[in-house]
């Protein structure tokens, strides 16, 4: 797709995404984090004993682990001021019409029902802590595809769930995976049976509405041998003066010969801390692709990773980050080559504007068995002014022989010549800069379904006009 139609910006973030509806909930846990809150969440969800134990154990791990200091500045997060669980509706709907009016209005405004009608095979919508809407095309259900929220999966598919949950990202992996495992709620659960190809995307839409809310969704995707699925998630929140926390964990298992693509278009408001752990295990000849677009948020720390476990496994990360005033996007990717003949690429594109800061942080690890493996990392940063900042932190550990590892990094500014050329055709400076930025991220945009590409370009346009946040 070479061109994206130009979209009108009649509204700004505040109108389109930044609105909020009054809180109306059936259950809201008290502020703060302690074993009682964790027990309460588990009790509300009527969970089996093993899950409660795992949650409590994870809470202990979270408390013991020090705050990571190697990346963005997280010292400002006040964990005691956050609501860890909020249930806005006491039932899950399969029809938009059945949603409580406030929630329905929210998703209508965000255009989600329309998107479902147009081009999605299944939709899940999470509001605060719980998934409130869910649908999947009948043909896919008949083929044995499971697409549900993670809480229902624990209840309805307990064996499958227990076999994989926490195996890709154990609670002790890092402080925030421990936190997520302690208080997780909602998220998507997908199982694609052997040989089944889900040709149109499945989508989940995550929305934080309440102030000081913590959203801790937990996503688990299992692609059985030879299967294919493309999963897309979108995230937004209103603009409050106080902070919210989004700390998700996404675990993916891609079995022999299967392919999974996971696309994120995250557009949090600029008071959200976004600290997400995403990891996939790719087995023989399997392909895992992370397509990760990070706009908004105050701080994002996210490094999707692929463990290339068996020969022929392939991993890709394609990410875009946009940091405006007061924002720090610390993003990148990790490729862990465990087996021979595995390949990986990381392509990172970042844009900094108005004093915003982007960092690329990447890790390529090649274990001794990973001979004849290849990895290529390319990071390009575009700075829109002199106050903005971009850094690159690549870490490479190679313990294998006969491997190829490439790294390319560029930092550029919007060139005067490009601006002059576009402006000499009557295009305003702001629009010319937006075009250059959209052109810069085009390798990313072209990987998105058209509707998302249009939306992303529109979001970039909003960011460029400085009307966001």
């Amino acid at each position, binding site marked *: 797709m070479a061109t994206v139609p130009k979209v009108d910006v009649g509204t700004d973030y505040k109108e389109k995404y930044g609105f909020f509806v009054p809180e109306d909930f059936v259950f809201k846990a008290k502020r703060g984090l302690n074993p009682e809150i964790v027990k309460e969440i588990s009790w509300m969800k009527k969970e089996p004993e093993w899950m409660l134990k795992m949650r409590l154990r994870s809470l202990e791990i979270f408390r013991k682990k020090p705050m990571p200091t190697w990346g963005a500045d997280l010292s400002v997060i006040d964990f005691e001021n956050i609501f860890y669980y909020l249930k806005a509706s006491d039932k899950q709907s399969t029809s938009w019409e059945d949603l409580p009016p406030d929630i329905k209005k929210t998703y209508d405004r965000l255009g989600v029902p329309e998107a479902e009608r147009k081009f999605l095979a299944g939709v899940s919508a999470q509001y605060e802590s719980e998934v409130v809407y869910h649908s999947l095309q009948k043909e896919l259900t008949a083929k044995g595809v499971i697409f549900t929220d993670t809480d229902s999966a624990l209840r309805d598919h307990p064996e499958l769930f227990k076999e994989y949950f926490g195996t890709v990202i154990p609670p002790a992996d890092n402080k925030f995976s421990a936190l997520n495992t302690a208080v997780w709620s909602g998220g998507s659960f997908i199982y694609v049976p052997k040989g089944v190809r889900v040709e149109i995307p499945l989508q989940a839409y995550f929305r934080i509405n309440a102030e000081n809310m913590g959203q801790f969704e937990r996503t688990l995707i299992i692609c059985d041998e030879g299967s294919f699925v493309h999963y897309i998630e979108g995230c937004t929140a209103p603009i409050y003066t106080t902070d919210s926390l989004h700390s998700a964990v996404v675990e993916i298992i891609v079995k022999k010969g299967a392919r999974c693509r996971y696309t994120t278009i995250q557009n949090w408001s600029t008071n959200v801390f976004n600290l997400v752990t995403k990891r996939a295990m790719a087995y023989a000849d399997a392909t895992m692709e992370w397509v990760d677009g990070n706009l908004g948020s105050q701080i994002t720390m996210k490094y999707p990773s692929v463990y290339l476990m068996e020969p022929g496994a392939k991993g890709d990360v394609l990410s875009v980050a946009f940091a405006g005033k007061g924002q720090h996007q610390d993003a990148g990717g990790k490729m862990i080559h465990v087996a021979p003949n595995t390949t990986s690429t990381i392509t990172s594109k970042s844009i900094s504007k108005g004093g915003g800061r982007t960092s690329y942080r990447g890790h390529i690890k090649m274990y001794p068995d990973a001979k004849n493996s290849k990895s290529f990392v390319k990071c390009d940063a575009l700075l829109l002014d002199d106050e903005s900042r971009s850094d690159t932190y690549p870490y490479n550990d190679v313990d294998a022989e006969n491997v190829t590892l490439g790294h390319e990094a560029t930092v550029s500014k919007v060139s005067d010549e490009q601006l002059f050329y576009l402006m000499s055709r009557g295009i305003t400076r702001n629009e010319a800069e937006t075009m250059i930025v959209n052109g810069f991220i*085009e390798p990313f945009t072209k990987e998105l379904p058209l509707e998302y590409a249009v939306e992303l370009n529109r979001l970039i346009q909003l960011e460029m006009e400085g009307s966001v946040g």
Partner: protein
Amino acid sequence: MADFEIRDLRASVEGKEILKGVTLAINKGEVHAVMGPNGSGKSTLSHTLMGHPGYTVDGGDVIFKGQNVLALQPDERARLGMFLAFQYPVVVPGISMTNFLRTALNAKRGYDGKDKSKQVTPKEFRSLLKSELEVLHMDDSFLPRYINDGFSGGEKKRAEILQMAILKPEIAILDETDSGLDIDSIKFVAEAVNRMRGPELGVLIITHYTRILEFIKPDFVHVLVDGRFVLSGGPEVAERLEKTGYSEWGHAEELKPEEVA
């Protein structure tokens, strides 16, 4: 008063004075050629007229439609009806020519993302593009490609002329459009410009060589040497230069272009 008037224009680059007082009046319907040896200030003239930020105006006025365009941003000058065909068109990756042309046309029409009545409709745009391509005898294969990305020299210049045809300026400056082109491409560009000639268009051709003037017959020719016009006249000036080059002003350069394969 002429439609487009350059009055005593003086400009410098990085503190070095290049244009030392250029005065020129262009009416719509006229084709003017500015010729000059290397370093005479030809590209400074074209860039200054269009408002490139790297060129400093030290004095003078450029009056077009009652405004001093030197006070305007390049995009404002373009929307007023000026056009510059670049000597070295710039590559902008990731944006297709189609998208670029549409955005530029919308900008020219004053569409700012709000008043939809000013926006070119997809149907109107397609038919406009189709008819201009036909007139220019161009195929549409380069439209999905990124702006000037991987274009040959000839393709770049043709793309400039297509932009001109779509945007329909009232004052067009062609900056060394003939440089680096083979004779077929020069003929092509010249034919296209000739087709656009008419009472609504004034043209300023900036060139080192007389060759393009064999195909686009100028009404007036001005010789620029060391930042000043040293000679102005009709087409006969070009014929004189064809014979003697710039030698009478102390420049021994050849006036025959390098052979282009």
